[in-house]
């Protein structure tokens, strides 16, 4: 447990009437520091908010933007929704897999890039759409796909 987490927990709790409401913002804040939520982190959060460990674990596993395993510095989500599928998101994913030498759901061995699927990102006008560290990029064409891997990222 990092010393500042206790303060963060107090701040999150102060925003809501009940401790379990503070759980999501606290998990986000800690994840932004740790990059993912380890089992130890989940236990620490449970202690900080006086919640049962399985509850925190269930919540953390429910939302796909909480990472339970280490992820790369650059996280690429490719939308798999209907509009994107019709506009070639499958090909985009295969292209990226080939470029990176990893499968969907994996992180490159150097810890630089993670390639993940996303359910509909609600940006059909940009189909096929991707996110680089949660920032929308699209429509991604074969020509612009490589920019997902090289372009400047904000974390």
């Amino acid at each position: 447990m990092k010393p500042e987490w206790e303060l963060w927990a107090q701040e999150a709790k102060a925003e809501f009437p009940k401790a379990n409401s503070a759980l999501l913002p606290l998990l986000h804040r800690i994840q932004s520091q740790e990059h993912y939520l380890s089992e130890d982190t989940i236990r620490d959060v449970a202690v900080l908010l006086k919640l049962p460990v399985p509850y925190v674990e269930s919540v953390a596993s429910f939302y796909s933007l909480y990472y339970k395993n280490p992820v790369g510095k650059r996280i690429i989500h490719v939308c798999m929704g209907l509009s994107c599928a019709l506009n070639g998101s499958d090909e985009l994913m295969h292209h990226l897999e080939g470029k990176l030498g990893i499968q969907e759901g994996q992180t490159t061995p150097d810890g630089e890039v993670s390639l993940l699927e996303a359910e509909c990102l609600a940006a059909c006008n940009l189909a096929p759409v991707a996110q680089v560290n949660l920032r929308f990029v699209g429509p991604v064409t074969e020509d612009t796909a490589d920019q997902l891997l090289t372009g400047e990222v904000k974390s």
Partner: protein
Amino acid sequence: MIRLTIDDREITVPEGTMVVDAAQELGIDVPIYCYHQALGPLGACRICLVQVEKMPKLVTACTTAVQEGMVVHTRGSAVDKGRQGVLEFLLINHPLDCPVCDKGGECFLQDYTFQYGSAAGRYDEPKIHKLKDAAINEFIIIDQERCVLCQRCVRFMGEYVGEEQLLLEGRGVETVVSTVSHQPMDSQFSGNVIDLCPVGALLSIPYRYKARPWNLERAESVCPHCPVACTTSVTSREGHVIRVEGRPIPGHDWGWLCDRGRFGYDFGYVEDRLLNAWLDGEITSAAESTRTIGSWLNDTLEQHGGDSVAFLVGGQQTMEEAYQIRRFADEVVGTSKVAVSRSVKGYLPLGLNGTFEDLDRADTIVYLGQDPYDAVPVVHLKVRDRYRDNPGLKVIGIGAYDLTRSTVPGDAFVLEPGEEAAFLAYTLAKVAASNPIIARLGEELGDFSPTFKGAKSEQEVETLGRQLLESEHLVLLWDGKDPHMESVLLALRGLREDVTAVLPTFGPANWRGFERAGIAVDYDRLEAFVEEAIQGKIHLLFSIGADLLRDYPDRERAKAALAAIDRVVSVGLFFPEQRELYHAVIPGAGWSEVDGTYTNMEGRMQVAKATVQPPGQSRPVRTYLGSWAHALKKSFVLEPEWDPFDHNAGDLIAKDALPEVQSVPKPARPAMKDGALRLVGTALVMEGGMPSEILQPRIPKYPGRISLADASRLGIGEPGGELGLRGQQGMISVMVAVDERIPQGVLVLPYGVVGSPLNQLGDGAVVEAVSLEEVSLR
């Protein structure tokens, strides 16, 4: 009360009842997966859809409370179509592998699909695959593909037991039931999730792929492992017990079992099971052993008379067998020396004995000496059930260590070992000194005053006293260790007008039944037997289902007693400890092999049916008794069979008058050298009972428990270590671990730990830690 109509039949039920329960009362079956009366409504599975007139849509019967004048239809085309739709969803990703599923034939998913579901699915997409054999502990696997996510198991562990070890992980179709941090679940009550699972997801590992339900025989039985005697259903196939399930008694018992009872059924088939007769260390034929023992009996009676023969009965016998033994002793042998082998000295008068219904109504529950979680686990669950109903429940632990635990929070009074009775008398004397009996007890205690480990003020003692007097429904769970407690309990009962119920948590499991069968169980008789044996007055002993060395509180004395008897015959399922002390060991039959009645800690008689034949040469005790009578050329007729039930009292043994309050002496505190430890014995259901291979991974590796302070002083780290102990009567070595509930200067050790016999040193003994080398040189 609310009146409503279900399927054209009227019923009146209390307000707040769910439609599903009202229907069940009428005998109308509404399908359910997620709902369980003990857990309350959830509405996760949607299979219990029913139609309520004037409601626009189908509603779930498990979450809809009854209302005045409601008209419910549990069948009909709309309902059936709704259920068919629900099943279609539940089966979308189900592997449909019933032919290889253990649950096939006794599965609610299968049954309801047969009844309501469609013949074929319309979903052509590939199914999502998940883990099919994820172990959640040593006994249970989960097939995540078959799970319908009803959450019964998760809610049972988290809400009902209060040990949150299961959770739902993930979201949507990817949700699975999993354990916390993917660590094996270690709750004592884990096995219940197998019974709770309505589909083939949670499966018993020892039972896996053993049988199909239609090859099975089932018998109603009672768990033999501890005094709770939970009702069970025993499954056997081809003469082997292969499964034990809980057997709910509607309105009385949920049918929960602890893992000891559920998985400890294999003692009949472990390698150590006695299958042959042994005479003087050699295997012999059954006929030879019977003849020889018959001639020993004949000779002993001729030379020394009936009273030179003694009988010692242990924990394995049924009431009927105890009755047969008692009659054999009376009528054939002519001896009055029949004793029950036991570990604790206390006795509880039947008039004080409460029932589990008392736990359901209790406002105050007191643990005396022992944590019920260790000794009688399902009683802990009953206390927890009461706590869930009544969060104001007061739980008080009085013993040599903190007896409370987080699942049922309470107030702990931690005393010097063995001072519970004196402390309780002292407490009563503080608040009820005007009562002459209490005043006398107070005087007898003289200047006794309790020393508390952890802060407790005199004020808190007075509060405790008033709680004991003023509680509206008081239940005490007593470990039976201190015989003087009987008087304090009688005195407490005398002070109170409201219910005062005591539940004995000590064994042997069927002791109350032995009493009913005419065998006095008081410790004095056992003590008198041991004394007479040492004096050479006993020439032949029949030890039936007993193991004196294991049970008797003083091992050296037990050895001396057995060694002084000319001929010692043991009848049992296993060799007794130090078999060289026995001249004949013959194989007995036990639970699941003989029909019989067991009486539990409530004084409730329950029948356990035999379901398999005794293996090898083992025979029920009545067979041996008959052949020994034959050897004496005496008749021993057991027909008509004795019926233990009293038809006026029902299944509870009729209460008798209460005895007088005896005196309670001031406890003597032994001198403690620096760094010495007091040994405190406790019953642990996983230890000291019948052996089991299935349970092996769950037998505690570190059965001894000490405080953190003592552990760091003695160099015991995580997860535990071995400690040598020297007392006045010898040395043993013990595997110990840290338990924060134990105060400094105390070592808690269960009875009957193989290789670390507590009775070698004595319960309550002052011991000092010595090096392991010293112990091995003993």
